[in-house]
């Protein structure tokens, strides 16, 4: 089992007292499989993804990634995890503004010590980014930005791809193509995909789906 969540609880402190966002989440995902996570806005989907990516820590529960419980790891270990093991595609604002598209695409792979120019070229072509490699993020449309973010994550060949509405800014055809790419990568490398989406159509194309409601999985 690549990923296993056990009794995850998460609170956010707010003005009106703590907000209980996730309540006793149990979830598991095997290598080579894909899982869709749906739920209405504000149900805690992004929060869950952030916990799995080691960006934030849960208030209770365990997150086992490749056999290790990442809850309670120190900052350095978590950073190494983000760099080498998981890849996270945000909803938006996830590119590095001071680097051009080519550098953004290569950034995580180089950071993880797995640079692979040939693979990058393939990715850029399949994501339709070959023409914009020398541009800067602010000179791209939001759909193009989204594709660069996906490309950057896939370029590093992470064992677990986390995607937070990766096709939210794309038209249907491009969205389908991007999802194809992600799924084929998962199949080729034996990685796993956990993807948040609002679209039933896309969710149905994944191996399985779970629904988040009022902080619980249903």
């Amino acid at each position, binding site marked *: 089992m690549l990923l296993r969540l056990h009794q995850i609880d998460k609170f956010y402190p707010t003005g009106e007292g703590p907000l209980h966002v996730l309540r006793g989440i149990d979830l598991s995902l095997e290598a080579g499989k894909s899982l869709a996570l749906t739920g209405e806005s504000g149900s805690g989907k992004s929060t869950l993804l952030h916990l799995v990516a080691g960006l934030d820590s849960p208030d209770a529960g365990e997150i086992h990634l490749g056999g290790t419980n990442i809850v309670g790891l120190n900052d350095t270990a978590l950073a190494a995890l*983000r760099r080498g093991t998981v890849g996270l595609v945000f909803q938006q604002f996830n590119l590095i503004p001071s680097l051009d598209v080519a550098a953004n695409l290569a950034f995580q792979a180089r950071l993880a010590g797995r640079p692979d120019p040939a693979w990058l070229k393939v990715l850029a072509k399949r994501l339709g980014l070959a023409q914009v490699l020398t541009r800067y993020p602010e000179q791209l449309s939001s759909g193009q930005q989204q594709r660069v973010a996906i490309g950057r994550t896939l370029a590093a060949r992470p064992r677990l791809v986390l995607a937070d509405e990766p096709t939210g800014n794309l038209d249907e055809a491009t969205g389908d193509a991007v999802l194809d790419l992600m799924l084929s990568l998962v199949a080729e490398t034996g990685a796993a995909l956990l993807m948040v989406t609002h679209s039933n159509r896309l969710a149905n194309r994944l191996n399985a789906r779970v629904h988040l409601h009022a902080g619980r999985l249903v």
Partner: protein
Amino acid sequence: MVWIGLTALLSYWRRRPVQLAMLLLGLSLATALWSAVQAINGEARASYDRAAAILGQDRLAQLVREDGARMDQQEFVRLRRAGWLASPVIEGEMRFGDVRLRVLGIDPLTLPPQAQQVDIAAGDELLPFITAPGVLYAAPETAARLTEQATPPVRVAEGLPPGTVVTDIGQAQVLLGAKHKISRLLLWPDQPIGRAPLKVTAPGLTLREPSETGDLARLTDSFHLNLTAFGFLAFAVGLFIVHSAIGLAFEQRRQVFRTLRALGLPARVLVLLLIAELLTFALLAGLVGVALGYVVASALLPDVAATLRGLYGADVPGTLSIRPEVWAAGLAIAVIGTLVAAAQSLWRLWHLPLLAAAQPRAWARTSERALGAQGVAAMVLLLTAAGIAHFGSGLEAGFALLAALLLGAALALPLVLTGILHLGGRLARGPLAEWFWADTRQQLPGLSLALMALLLALAANVGVSTMVSSFRLTFTGWLDQRLASELYVTARTEAEATAIRDWLAQRSDAVLPIWSIEGRVAGQPAAIYGVADHATYRDNWPILSAVPEVWDRIATGDGALINEQLARRQELGLGDQITLPGGWRASIVGVYADYGNPIGQVIIGIDTLVQHYPDVSRLRYAIRIAPGKAESLAAGLRAEFGLPAQNVIDQAGIKVFSLKVFERTFNVTAALNVLTLGVAGLAMFASVMTLSGMRLPQLAPVWAIGLTRRHLAWLELSRGLLLAALTMLAALPVGIALAFVLLAVVNVEAFGWRLPMHLFPGDLARLAALALLAVGLAAAVPAWRLAHLSPSDLLKVFAHER
């Protein structure tokens, strides 16, 4: 509508108190340094005016001798007989114990009403005034200094300049040892008809009109201009903070402006509202600034006063009075500065398109575009500086050169830094290094104003410290030459002097007279010294240029040495003729360095001096003796003649005193410099702080991809240090150029001497370390905050609502 607009605009500041504090602080500090200089200058000028106005000298015509020497009392008698209404005055310097004072002797019976500073003629004050031992009138603080000394009775009179006492002319003649002598004659404004013309009655005298400004004001002008220039520099550096704070506030309120405009508030009203807001801030900060300025000024004034006394013999009180014009000027400059700093932002607001989407980086990008224009302006300024350096002359040109140089260099800085950062990026290996350089380059527009301020402050520091250190080195070397004799003794009377000379004849290697008279040479106040023909002078005197056999020519009486400042001011050179008091002429055979002396000086042979000025006072002597024996000889002198301690001084004592005067001279510039550096540090801090809020979108993705917050924080800190180090590097050549201009142009014009430049790598390294430390501290705060930012704050960056 206007009210809604106003509250919408002001609510911004409520949410950002730090930014508001920075704005107000920057403006207050800028105003404070400027006002401090104004207050000091105002105080000094007022005291010059008071000195010039004493006895109505600014309103009454006077008769004087062209060479500045004293005239015989007989002249007065002759003029009175010829029907002129005139009043005699004697003026001179003397010591009461260790207090040195200007003594003014007046004749209360003939004094014109315009000159009646002290109400003596009234009632029963007259008799004690004119009969021995007389009465000294003095300003309260002068009177206070005299309480310990043995003097005639002292009475307090308001309105007299400090360091001056007024007494009856007969008493003054006794005190000054100038029987039957007077310095000048005051003429009544209304003279009787039918009097003999001046040419006939007083052929040896010249009429001086009241309007002619005092020597003091003229001599000290350059000193005050110097201060003003540094005050202005500090102000300009402060404005950088204000400019960036205002720019940021406008940028961040863009959305509010749009909304208000969309709601129907006319652009004109919006701009007026913002101007009103800025004016309120300006007045508030201006008030605080002027008050702060007074604090700074009163801390600096004692040193300034000591400098002015030591350097120019000008007496300036050590305490400040509150001057309305300083307040008005301070508030005005705060308002003007604010409007200048805000001009660009207001202009952009006026042209704000209603619909363009809010772009957080638009501000930075426009600055990038402005880089080109800035480069052109920098080139023009630097070329102007070069042009002035080549063709210009005079103190004003010197300061224009400084201004063009500094401003040009500051404007060129962002361009230079961009180039270096490009290069760094090209050479970088590895994704993090590449990102580091690229990101630093992107940061530059937001930081460039603060970096420019830092450059100005650092360059000024490098320049001034190099100048002062060069001067110190030259000065100490010069002191060694100049003060070659082991002991200096001052007798109290001529009889005592003769006795001392006889006593010393057997006990010392040589007794060298230091006799001098004061007068005017080439229209300038000057002192004429006679020197004995002795190895002390031949071997040591700090000659800058001289004809061969210069000391032989001095000894035979046909040559004169003059000091550098006299040579420069009057453009005199070797071989030129000068007319000395009494109307005789001598040819210049050499020019020597005479640092720290405001007036001209002429050196002739001692025999020549005595021959032309037989009644020269013969009280001071330099004594040569083996250094080991100097101390016991000094003790012997004091014991034998009962001389007070300060009448026998050894070489070391004078050197210590001279160096102290020297250090104080530059204390003020040094203090202003340190304050300017502080302001620049604050500018840096303000910019880094405000920018750090806008940094998260750039940092969060890198964090998410796999860097720890601590790692990022270190990178942020290094970024600040890198920029500071590069700025420091850029400041070095600018500062050295500045030092060169100060030494070779400004000092020559201001003080009349030129000095060689010496570089002190240790000092520069210390300054660099200090600058890095300051910037490091400024950058450490946001870096620390970043390292301790909660993940959920970083994650907010990726949320929709940003």
